[in-house]
């Protein structure tokens, strides 16, 4: 039953992430499109923002409902964990997240349903910033909860463990806002989320730009791709930097996870970056490696030269070692996407209009799939890499989970439900966007 609980939550959050990443990228695209439309008096950008605003309503609706599913699932599947969350500063983060939600929903209602009620166009555009602040704020606060799970603070951990999870004392409610891993994790999650979402939305525009023969439609798709291409170039570059910092933070705060991700069987110095092999005893077997690279990056990020190895920790606390492979896939995928956008950037600065190049756009579509896979692998690596812990070095997943058989049938129904809702939602995104209620002439 424990495996089912893990699968159910992983499946739900994986589905939820699809919605969230596109929501976040949408709000960025809407805001930028409207801003440009005002600055340049460009009706096409305005029509783009209007049509995307409708898509955002659906995205918000299904995303929020899915968020409520997650909240109820957390209580039902991991009640012991949620009791700890609710008794410490982690709940303050969830409370802050709901406040961000309020900001988002009220700004969204005003932005979409009262578009023409604002005489000053910049006043209306400012609402998109509120919407974005609410959307990004929600993502930031929920990532802070995850950072707290990775590096818990703000309560007396030893008293909590020694009392058999009965005594929660020494609570500092606001400590969860800034755990040792918060800043690095939040920045990395934020930029990679915007990147992945931009790629997915961009793939839609790329596909229709290639297919469409309608000049008006193509003008709109090309403008959307222009914005998304710029966002992707910036975020993939920053993702590389924040990803490297994130590994530095792991090295300092979660050395076992670091050792598992990098496939270090034993501690040592002058380590290579190891790819696609496996840890057998005290050796890393198979795959290939880049000599000295791991140590070089660790030295640059943290100044640490002595790197940890799995043998330093009891094997009962090791995460599943396939995280080395998921981590490798993530980094190599990220680098490949970086190369793609380097080419895109070079085409851009040489005025070759990559956002209208069929070759680039044909490549964009599989690149978007790769970006979402890489993004999901990133989360999988983070979560599986923390196993067996749900709260690092405090509470294991087995201790936190509700393993009642009564959850089996409702769980299967939830999975089936998501399998229906997610494709329906993306289908409707496309249908709503393609409906020409707001044409250039509107």
């Amino acid at each position, binding site marked *: 039953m424990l495996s089912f609980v893990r699968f159910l939550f992983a499946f739900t959050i994986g589905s939820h992430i699809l919605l969230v990443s596109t929501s976040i990228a949408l709000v960025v695209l809407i805001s930028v499109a409207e801003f440009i439309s005002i600055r340049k008096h460009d009706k096409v950008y305005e029509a783009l923002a*209007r049509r995307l605003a409708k898509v955002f309503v659906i995205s918000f609706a299904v995303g*929020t409902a899915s968020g409520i599913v997650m909240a109820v699932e957390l209580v039902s599947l991991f009640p012991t964990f949620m009791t700890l969350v609710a*008794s410490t500063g982690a709940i303050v983060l969830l409370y802050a997240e709901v406040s961000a*939600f309020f900001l988002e929903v009220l700004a969204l209602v005003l932005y979409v349903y009262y*578009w023409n009620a604002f005489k000053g166009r910049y006043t209306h555009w400012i609402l998109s910033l509120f919407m974005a602040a609410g959307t990004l704020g929600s993502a930031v606060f929920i990532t802070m909860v995850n950072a707290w799970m990775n590096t818990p603070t703000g309560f007396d951990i030893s008293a909590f463990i020694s009392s058999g999870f009965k005594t929660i004392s020494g609570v500092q409610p606001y400590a969860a806002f800034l755990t040792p891993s918060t800043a690095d994790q939040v920045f990395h999650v934020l930029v990679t989320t915007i990147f992945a979402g931009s790629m997915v939305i961009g793939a839609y525009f790329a596909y229709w730009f290639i297919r469409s023969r309608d000049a008006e439609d193509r003008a709109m798709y090309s403008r959307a791709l222009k914005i998304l291409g710029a966002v992707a170039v910036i975020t993939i570059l920053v993702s590389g930097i924040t990803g490297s910092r994130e590994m530095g933070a792991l090295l300092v705060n979660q050395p076992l996870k670091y050792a598992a991700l990098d496939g270090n069987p034993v501690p040592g110095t002058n380590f290579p970056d190891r790819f696609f092999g496996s840890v057998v005893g005290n050796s890393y077997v198979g795959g290939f490696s880049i000599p000295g690279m791991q140590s070089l990056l660790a030295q640059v990020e943290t100044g640490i030269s002595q790197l940890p190895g799995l043998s330093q920790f009891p094997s009962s606390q090791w995460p599943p070692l396939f995280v080395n492979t998921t981590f490798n896939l993530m980094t190599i995928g990220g680098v490949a996407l970086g190369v793609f956008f380097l080419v895109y950037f070079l085409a851009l600065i040489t005025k070759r209009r990559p956002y209208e190049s069929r070759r680039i756009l044909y490549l964009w579509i599989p690149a978007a799939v790769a970006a979402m896979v890489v993004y999901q692998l990133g989360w999988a690596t983070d979560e599986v890499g923390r196993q067996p812990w749900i709260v690092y070095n405090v509470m294991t997943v087995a201790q936190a989970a509700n393993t009642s058989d009564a959850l089996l049938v409702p769980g299967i129904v939830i999975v089936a439900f998501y399998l229906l809702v997610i494709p329906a939602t993306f289908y409707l995104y496309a249908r709503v966007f393609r409906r020409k209620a707001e044409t250039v002439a509107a």
Partner: protein
Amino acid sequence: MNGVFEVNFAAFSIFVALLITEIMGAVVLLIAWPARGKVLDYLVPVWEVTGTFGAFWVVTGDFAYPTLLVPVASLFAPLLVVFVMLWVARSASISFAEFITKRGWLDEMKLYRAYALSTIVIGIVVLVLLSSLVGGQGVDLSTGSFSLASWATAGSMAFILGTLLLGVGFAPVFFDLPQLRGYVLPFAGAGVALSVLSYWLMSSALVTWWMSVPVVLTLLAGALYLWPRTVKVVTNKGVFLTVLSVIIFSLQFLVYPAAVGQALSIDAVTTAGAMADAFISMTLVGASLLAVMLLLYIRVAARGPSGPDFP
């Protein structure tokens, strides 16, 4: 006076008030589809706010009563799962309905009716939860189990039916539907009578003089719709929602100081110390932000809808 409880109950009152107005709209969508115009003008922006208040109430509940999470998870797991699936169905169907163009068998009316049905069933699920939290029907705290069969007492059924009758009675008031004016007093009166009866059946201790506050406010709101001079006041959605929230808030004596048929002391399970202080401080910050946004919303909404479909 328990500040943490009051905040959580206030969030609950606003959420339930919004949900009730949605249920009233759902009733109209099902029984009087041609009158949908006024209903959709209200529902289409507001259903998203209801969801957010729902999430707010859940999180304040987690924050306020951390030790209740494990018992609640085991007690109400099946009901909660039904609730969340209906919630996704409700949100998906109304957002799809808003933008759908007819394609095959699927059209706007079918989606809005799917929304209406799921919203009404959500209301019933919430009422089942509430009636068991008030009177303890179906709840066995010693074994941590909930039985729907044991819950289905005369008191619980009267509670559900009374609330639904109130919804039907007040739908014409809230949406200002003169063609359904004849429903108001019979349904609202029967709803009030059944609700009071349900509390008495759950526990005679629940029926106190305090009960006269919501009873009088409810009947007054219905009667004012029948008097032409006051129609504008009671059909003002802001006024109605405020009064409805106050009525629900005034029912807090049903669960405080003790809930679940007087078996659970609320003060004993409420968060305390630094966490209680943080709860109040965060609420003040969040409420200030919300108040500013709501004021802006009311100011802009007074100009009428003018979104992407209203050039």
